[in-house]
């Protein structure tokens, strides 16, 4: 059973999501990975504004392939989220409500998620061709020079994700592994 979610999020929706929930996300989300995160934090440190209003938004950690003619986007699966950990607590403080990626997050991110109310979703790593089918629009809105790492606004429809860490800090990686671990 999938939960249907609209992006941007609200804190009320965030609170209904539990680790292990399968969700379909529709609406607008923003892409950013290593280089874009570094630039965003540098901009904040200089006292400048972010290139988009981050309040209630979802960031998708992805660097897509170029789109073939007639396509909206190339393959676009998630990248490893942990590399963004150093930059994430600040963005959560500013109102970021959701992240889509893959892999564990560190303690500082999970604590900030609990403090400010945010959710961490996983998309299937290595399924970029399938995920591209859920993207209806793609527009670069900042850092054009970064190529695949530029910030894009994506309009997605029924984009399939699973809640990995919810706003209470429950973690599907830990829960799932415990259920299937064999100690002999």
């Amino acid at each position, binding site marked *: 059973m999938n939960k249907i979610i609209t992006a941007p999020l609200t804190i009320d929706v965030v609170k209904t999501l539990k680790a292990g929930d399968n969700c379909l996300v529709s609406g607008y989300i923003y892409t950013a990975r290593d280089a874009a995160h570094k630039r965003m934090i540098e901009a904040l440190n200089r006292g400048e504004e972010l290139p988009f209003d981050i309040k209630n938004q979802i960031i998708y950690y992805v660097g897509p392939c170029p789109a*073939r003619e007639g396509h909206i986007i*190339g393959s676009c699966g998630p990248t490893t989220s*942990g590399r963004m950990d150093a930059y994430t607590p600040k963005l959560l403080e500013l109102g970021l409500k959701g992240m889509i990626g893959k892999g564990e997050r560190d303690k500082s991110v999970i604590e900030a998620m609990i403090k400010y109310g945010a959710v961490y979703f996983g998309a*299937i790593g290595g399924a970029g*061709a399938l995920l591209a089918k859920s993207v209806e629009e793609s527009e670069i809105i900042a850092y054009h020079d970064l*190529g*695949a790492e530029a910030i894009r606004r994506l309009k997605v429809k029924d984009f399939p994700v699973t809640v990995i860490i919810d706003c209470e800090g429950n973690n599907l990686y830990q829960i799932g592994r415990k259920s*299937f671990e064999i100690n002999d």
Partner: protein
Amino acid sequence: MRTIHTDTIIEAVKNLCIEANCSLPNDVYCAIEKSIGTEKSQIGKGILEKIKENADIAKEQNMPICQDTGMAIFFVKIGQDVHIEGEYLYDAINEGVRRGYKEGYMRNSIVRDPLDRVNTGDNTPAVIHTEIVAGDKLEIIFAPKGFGSENMSATCMLKPSQGEAGVIDFVLDTVKKAGANPCPPIFVGVGIGGSMEKAAILSKYALTRDVEYENPNPYYRKMEEFLKDEINKLGIGPQGFGGSNTCLRVFIETFPTHIAGLPVAVNICCHVLRHKKIVI
């Protein structure tokens, strides 16, 4: 002496880049298909089905299976009776990569310097391992490697006294630490012996084997099976969400080593185990 012109090599490399990135090898596809039947987690089963569907879409639409079209890794075996005519062999391989990644709408993921991190814009340079072999053929294996799994790989210089148990512990520990990051179900290449860099190269080369490949050494064949079973007992499962399929195959390559050492390298690859070979 047989002459091969680099124009032929450029064209072959270009095609390898596109085919390897868009069409999952049949043996890997079958391994994923098989895992759907054995997966005990419902979420896990659903993920494996989507992974299979993804490979179908990629092949049908000629688009990359994964957006991380990787760093271009080559193993080139040059017959000693081959004369290469035209430009420098490495330039020709890089030109093939340049053309393949552009024509195949693949992502450029290489930065010119590990610290200043400016993208080269054409996915070059490739990492090229060459070997001189007998004969008059040129064999090129292309194995693009994504860094979600590459980042979770490791090498270790064990003491000889740690022996088999030390190797097993190191492999399991590496996979455990990797958790969900390398996009399980994974394939694991293990290089044992040689020197530090030799073990690492062996572990990478191990990942160019077919899933059905039978290790000619029965001792290591058994160890491959044992390691796979032990990894699957960790419960990490597809995408790390918990399940019975964490690893689809372990490949071991070995080389003689020094009396004082036991180098081990573990190279992890995601479920998109891309490799393609041609012989010219």
